[in-house]
């Protein structure tokens, strides 16, 4: 165990851990939203995210920005960021809705049991990632550099880069907005009502299908945002990147308490940190092991995640 490395780099590890965790958190939001609403582990959400990474790339290519182009000027950079964001969100959102329409809605109409949704979710996940794999020849696609990575803040030997800071801030802002939306607005309350009892929600005058569509769209858009951040940070995408990242994000959602939005943020950040500390301590190859072991241990002591489910448990 490399304590020396851990402690001498604790600052940097924390920074990367948080920015990594922020991406997990944004993806986790999609899982948590859909899970909270339909009690469905939307495995295809990882592909929603993956599509977003390509969405941003396509959008950039459309406006004439390509992989090996020189770094653009500041105003152009802002434009490109917006273009990429819109591209990613649109692609992700459309994918999320397509999955809902093609894979879930018909089952809902038949009142199928939950396990069946899980299988179509897996099917959709495989199909989307394979379709993209076939189209892209399973090649990697590099992203254009929108800016030079630079240290914004340096305190002692802790370096916070512009990317890290941006990713973290973006995630927190989006989180807060979404949280307020769900907990404060009428529509948000509608979402929660359908989540808890769809029939009774209808008796309150809530249109269930509209709520479901809205939720998938929200999850998709968040995944799109995560995809853009991923592109900026990792710089390359491929048809199969969704799967592992999706599992991580889902883990983060569960860690925080699935169905709980703030839990998603907390879980994501915690997972990012744990992974980075863990890999510093035990070696990068043990990183995921550390992550999953921590998950198991936390669930043993807090069986519904760090913050618990937001849905109260029915009583005996």
């Amino acid at each position, binding site marked *: 165990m490399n304590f020396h490395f851990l402690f001498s780099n604790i600052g940097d590890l924390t920074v990367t851990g948080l920015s990594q965790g922020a991406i997990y958190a944004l993806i986790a939001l999609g899982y948590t939203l859909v899970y909270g609403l339909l009690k469905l582990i939307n495995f295809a959400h990882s592909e929603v995210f993956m599509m977003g990474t390509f969405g941003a790339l396509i959008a950039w290519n459309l406006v004439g920005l390509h992989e090996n182009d020189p770094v653009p000027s500041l105003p152009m950079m802002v434009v490109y960021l917006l273009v990429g964001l819109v591209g990613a969100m649109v692609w992700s959102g459309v994918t999320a809705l397509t999955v809902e329409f093609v894979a879930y809605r018909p089952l809902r109409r038949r009142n199928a049991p939950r396990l069946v949704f899980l299988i179509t979710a897996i099917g959709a996940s495989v199909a989307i990632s394979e379709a993209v794999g076939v189209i892209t020849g399973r090649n990697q696609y590099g992203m254009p550099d929108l800016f030079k990575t630079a240290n914004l803040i340096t305190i002692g030997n802790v370096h916070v880069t512009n990317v890290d800071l941006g990713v973290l801030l973006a995630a927190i802002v989006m989180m807060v907005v979404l949280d307020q939306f769900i907990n404060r607005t*009428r529509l948000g*309350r*509608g979402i*929660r*009502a359908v*989540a*808890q*009892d769809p*029939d*009774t*929600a*209808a*008796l*309150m*005058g*809530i*249109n*269930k299908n509209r709520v479901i569509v809205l939720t998938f769209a929200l999850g998709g858009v968040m995944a799109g945002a995560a995809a853009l951040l991923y592109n900026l940070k990792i710089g390359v995408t491929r048809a199969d990147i969704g799967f592992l990242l999706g599992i991580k994000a889902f883990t983060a959602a569960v860690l925080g308490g699935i169905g709980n939005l703030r839990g998603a943020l907390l879980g994501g950040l915690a997972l990012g940190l744990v992974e980075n500390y863990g890999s510093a301590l035990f070696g990068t190859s043990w990183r995921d092991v550390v992550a999953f072991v921590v998950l198991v241990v936390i669930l043993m002591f807090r069986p519904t995640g760090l913050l618990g*489910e*937001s*849905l*109260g*448990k*029915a*009583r005996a």
Partner: protein
Amino acid sequence: MLLELEDLVVAYGRIEALHGISLGIEEGEIVALIGANGAGKTTTMRAISGLRAAQQGRIRLQGRDITRMRADQRVVSGISQAPEGRGIFPGMTVEENLDLGCYTRRDTAGIAEDRDRVFDLFPRLAERRKQLGGTMSGGEQQMLTIGRALMARPKVLLLDEPSMGLAPMLIQQIFAIIAEINTQGTTILLVEQNAQQALSLAHRAYVLETGSIVRTGTGAELLADPTVQEAYLGVA
């Protein structure tokens, strides 16, 4: 007629629960629907509120055909149901549950007024504003269900066994409340096992037996009817 059912047939899978019932409710009335377990009372309510589809027949609200309307749209049209079995949102607080009752309303002032009224009627709810609905006791949940239905300020209020699980004292109160909101202008369709009180309160009533309406009349008439007495009033 405010609400009218015509030859309504509803089935669960292969089992037909309602074999073509017709009934009508005039504006301002309290109509009771009584019948044994499994007679189809709840099914009738669910058909009216749109939770179950009719195989056959028509439902009309103020002359408008709503047979194929979605449940949530019917709420907007003025039908509100306090479901049987306490359909409360377990993970939401008492307050949020009440707020959902007026999901389709926008008149903030009116909403606040109604909320105060509900809290007046059920002080226990006021005490427990922040408690999660799912952790309330059976009777408390029942209060919440009724209170929430009132929050919608419906044209027609469907109450499915509102006295179930309530302590004797509260049962008296509930019936008093029903009478009061009726005088304030809400039309009510009431399903009750507590036939005695329901019939005393109702202007008119229907008796449902295994999916068909077998008798109808004013509350007083049915109270005096020997067959009704024997079957539903426990008068041996």
